[in-house]
């Protein structure tokens, strides 16, 4: 378990790092895909099949494809000549470190905040389904509405307006 865990973690972190430091944007997108795949494997390592496969389907099947499509359609696929680091890289680094610190702190504290949660919770697809349309139905509906609004908004922004109308 632990060797596999460290191996997958290394791949995930390497993918995420390369997504930031590579010059060619398409290479960055593909490196990001590696990071997504690593995350999915980590979920699977925790026996969370539903989360793992959803991660692959949504992030590799949809998000990564969307990213590469956006890169190609906006002609951003040419490799920049000079340095890819912006002047604000230091500020970005500090912000990223701050966010990471908050996340890390939350994860480390969670064990103390929820002492009653059992060590290995079971999460079958069925239970997740019942939870989604049962207890968490309101958040689900709000997210669905938000996504619909976002989709319609995107279509309206991108709509091709005909002349003379």
């Amino acid at each position, binding site marked *: 378990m632990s060797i596999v865990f460290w191996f997958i973690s290394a791949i995930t972190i390497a993918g995420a790092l390369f997504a930031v430091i590579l010059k060619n944007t398409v290479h960055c997108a593909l490196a990001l895909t590696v990071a997504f795949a690593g995350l999915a494997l980590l979920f699977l390592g925790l026996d969370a099949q539903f989360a793992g496969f959803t991660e*692959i389907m949504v992030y590799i*099947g*949809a998000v990564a494809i969307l990213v*590469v*499509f956006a890169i*190609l359609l906006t002609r951003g696929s040419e490799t920049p000549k000079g340095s890819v680091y912006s002047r604000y890289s230091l500020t970005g680094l500090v912000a990223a470190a701050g966010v990471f610190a908050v996340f890390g702190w939350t994860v480390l504290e969670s064990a103390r905040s929820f002492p009653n949660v059992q060590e290995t919770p079971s999460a079958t697809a069925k239970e997740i389904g019942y939870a989604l349309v049962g207890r968490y139905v309101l958040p689900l509906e709000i997210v669905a509405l938000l996504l619909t609004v976002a989709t319609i908004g995107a279509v309206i922004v991108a709509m091709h307006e005909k002349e003379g109308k």
Partner: protein
Amino acid sequence: MFATLDQIFIILRNLVLGYLPEVVRPYVSVVLSVVCIVAVFPGLFALTTVFERKGIARIQNRLGPNRVGPFGLLQPIADGIKSLTKEDIVPTTANGAIHFLAPLVLVVAVFMGFAVLPMGRNMVLVDMDCALLFYFAMGASSELAVFMAGWSSRNKYSLLGAMRAVAQMISYEVILLLSGLAVVMISGSLSLTKIVEAQNVYTGWFPHWFIFTPWGLAGFVMYAIAATAETNRSPFDLPEGESELVAGYHTEYSGFKFALFFLGEYLAMFSISGLGATLFLGGWSAPFSFLSWVPSWIWFFSKLMLSIFVFIWMRGTLPRLRQDQLMNFAWKFVLPFTLYNLMVTALWRFMGDGWERWVACTALVIAGYVLLGRISMRREHFGPRSYRYAE
């Protein structure tokens, strides 16, 4: 006797495992199953290429391959030797690593799908709880391989072909998922073995396959359309429309890498047919109760080859669609109808066991089909078209 024949592969595997020490058994068991899958399906692929070329030739009033071996049956071996010995050409401007990785990623992602398909009673490599989700996750990853191939070749035909392929695969993947969802709603499980078991029930002679219900028939037709588009088969083979794009995303591949793309395409066809058979055609269950003695894997592979035959038949019969027709068809007809079919399925689920649900659901499916078709055709006018990106 027939029970032994039905479980012959399991018995053989256990026989081999019996000679090995306890520690390595689970590993060897997995390796044996994987080797079987990796051997059987490419073998089937070799057979299918001859079958397809013969079939298409018959439809076009030709003879097809008839020089290598009896009736041209050894043609795939000749093709294999040819593609192995051909020079592997990589364009100088191509992106080496990605160009190399793309066919591998494609074939691996396609092979993964076979891991969850139940090919007979007790014959499934991994019987997991989220099998259907796993299958679609692997299908989604093969899209990225297509993109990698097209982009890394540095060829405008490749890139255009890849863009077309990915756009098409994303659009039809939604339909594939939603038509599969109807089955999940009825059987109440994402596990493919449980879905097959739910259909392996007989009333008199007749099985309870999902295709024999109104929602199942509609779902199956939508699934078949989406599966054809997902595997880039004719009439949805625009990504490799040879009159426009040379060969689409694998234009710049030669030798064995090209053969791998070819293999990937056919394997995707097998696996998607297998999934269709599992979801709607009862997987490995027999079509009549008095035929249950025939080994289950024979039924699975018969259904699979029957779907392949239909694929070939359609390829020989239908002309290729245009890109805008393809997209309009997906988003304006198939997707709304599949969503509508989901609601009919929900109604079927909650109407109880009586005959009323047969009448109601059949009427609803037919009415929905006719109305949707009429409404979407009403504003259709056949005048000059405007191309947004090609003017």
